[in-house]
């Protein structure tokens, strides 16, 4: 058999799975969002979505953008210290510490934060006990802040891991030359190290951005009431109204948000795949 046919034959089962369980549902989603009961083209489902849920759309975008920005800041700080820090023991401790939430599922993160950030949760007990806040000022963080905290806690280690790996493979000579010329560490980080790992940071952030857009458990557990994230609205439309059309219209709107990120990511991935082959 010719090797090209053999190759296609070997890939075909995996491709078939992607086609049936990914492409087909996506097509169904588009179809359902744009057709009315009689099967004719309509924009009514989108009108209804915007009418009912435009607040939640804003809320979703703001939460995900804010979380991404914080994730980037945390990842740059930790990976930067791991690469440029001079205190070996601090680096060892940091490396051991930061990655704990890496494989913790979102649904567990939701439960953990639900207890930790509550009004009588451990965070408030520690803040009050340490004299940092007045007992009467203790408040529950289980609103938009809770969602952001849960997202950053869960996703920052992932981006940090990617970023620290990329930073470790930078030629040491560049960094040392800059240091010898008297550049401060923060300057080396932002002017020498970071520009070389921009691609990795971008990929990590886009993957996190898309992931956070479709997480259902965290907003459902931390902040189920309006304004909330669009995933909660989708689940509500389906479980309470059996309304797949509006649910799919909402899904497509969130797909639109993600495609902006995905476009950046795929462009980068294609460039990399071309260089690699």
């Amino acid at each position: 058999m010719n090797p090209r046919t053999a190759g296609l034959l070997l890939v075909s089962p995996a491709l078939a799975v992607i086609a049936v369980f990914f492409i087909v549902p996506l097509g169904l989603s588009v179809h359902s969002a744009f057709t009315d009961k009689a099967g004719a083209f309509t924009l009514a489902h989108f009108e209804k979505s915007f009418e009912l849920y435009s607040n939640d759309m804003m809320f979703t975008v703001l939460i995900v953008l804010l979380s991404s920005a914080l994730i980037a800041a945390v990842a740059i700080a930790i990976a930067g210290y791991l690469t440029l820090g001079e205190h070996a023991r601090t680096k060892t401790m940091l490396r051991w510490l930061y990655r704990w939430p890496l494989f913790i599922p979102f649904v567990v993160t939701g439960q953990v934060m639900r207890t930790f950030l509550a009004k009588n949760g451990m965070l408030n007990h520690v803040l009050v006990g340490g004299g940092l806040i007045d007992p009467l000022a203790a408040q529950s963080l289980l609103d938009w802040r809770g969602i952001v905290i849960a997202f950053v806690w869960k996703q920052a280690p992932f981006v940090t891991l990617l970023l620290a790996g990329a930073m470790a493979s930078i030629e040491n000579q560049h960094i040392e030359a800059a240091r010898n010329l008297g550049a401060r560490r923060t300057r080396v980080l932002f002017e020498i190290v970071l520009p070389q790992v921009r691609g990795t940071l971008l990929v990590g952030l886009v993957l996190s951005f898309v992931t956070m857009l479709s997480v259902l458990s965290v907003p459902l557990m931390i902040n189920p009431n309006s304004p909330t994230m669009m995933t909660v609205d989708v689940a509500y439309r389906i479980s309470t109204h059996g309304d797949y059309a509006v649910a799919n219209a909402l899904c497509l709107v969130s797909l639109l948000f993600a495609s902006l990120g995905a476009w950046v990511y795929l462009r980068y991935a294609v460039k990399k795949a071309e260089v690699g082959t």
Partner: protein
Amino acid sequence: MIAALAQRALPVLGRGLAIALLAFIIFGPLANLLLWAFAERWYFPGKIPQQFGFAFWGRVFEPRGGAVQSLVTSIWIALLTVTFCLAAAIPAGYALARLKLPYRAAILMLFLLPQAVPNLPIYVNIARMFYELRLNGTVFGVVLVHAAHGLVLAVWIASAAFAAVDAQLEEAARNLGAGPWRCFATVTLPLAAPGLIASAIFVFLESLDEFTGTYFVGVPDVTTLPLLMFNASMGGNYQIASITALLLLLPSVAFMLVVERFLKSNVLAMVGR
């Protein structure tokens, strides 16, 4: 003298405080979970539970608690998902790494796509498809959903694992008279095994932890551990939810601690190539 001392002590203090703060941020929430898992009674304004004990552990593990049933269901689904994923990912990964494929870049892109698109519309519409096929609420249906998602990761890692195997070793085996199957089974596969095991563990954990897909496709008959945890939590039963969460945490944390043993940097460097 004092100024010099302060100059040396300050960075040490700063570093210590920063590490302590990070440790609190990472372990504080987990410690809170542990407290709830062993709390017999905990009401306001107690900073720690008024009474510790194992009573809720008994309730979780007794037949009516459903935890054992869910655990068995979860592990069974995860094992089937791994089998399904590897069966498709090993040939695909080998072809992507070794054979001259037409449209290779486009095929790799197709395998990237599911990671770059929110999964919610996929799950919602698979649930609709399955409803008509009567696959909703069946273990098989849930396995298919988990496998479709896990396959992406599995193909990537399998392809990287095969690409990291030195092609000269295969050529040597072929020159010594081994047929293509023998060469694959005795040279390529064993050398790629650590990477393949890593991808199997990834898929296993992803399936074990998966919530959204199971939420839409598994209801009402398939209750995995994450769904049990979610239901307990939403029902306000924090002890049960925390104990179940702890069961879900253990394999994830264990894998975090050993991941580098399976995923060597030479394989990681080949991901996406």
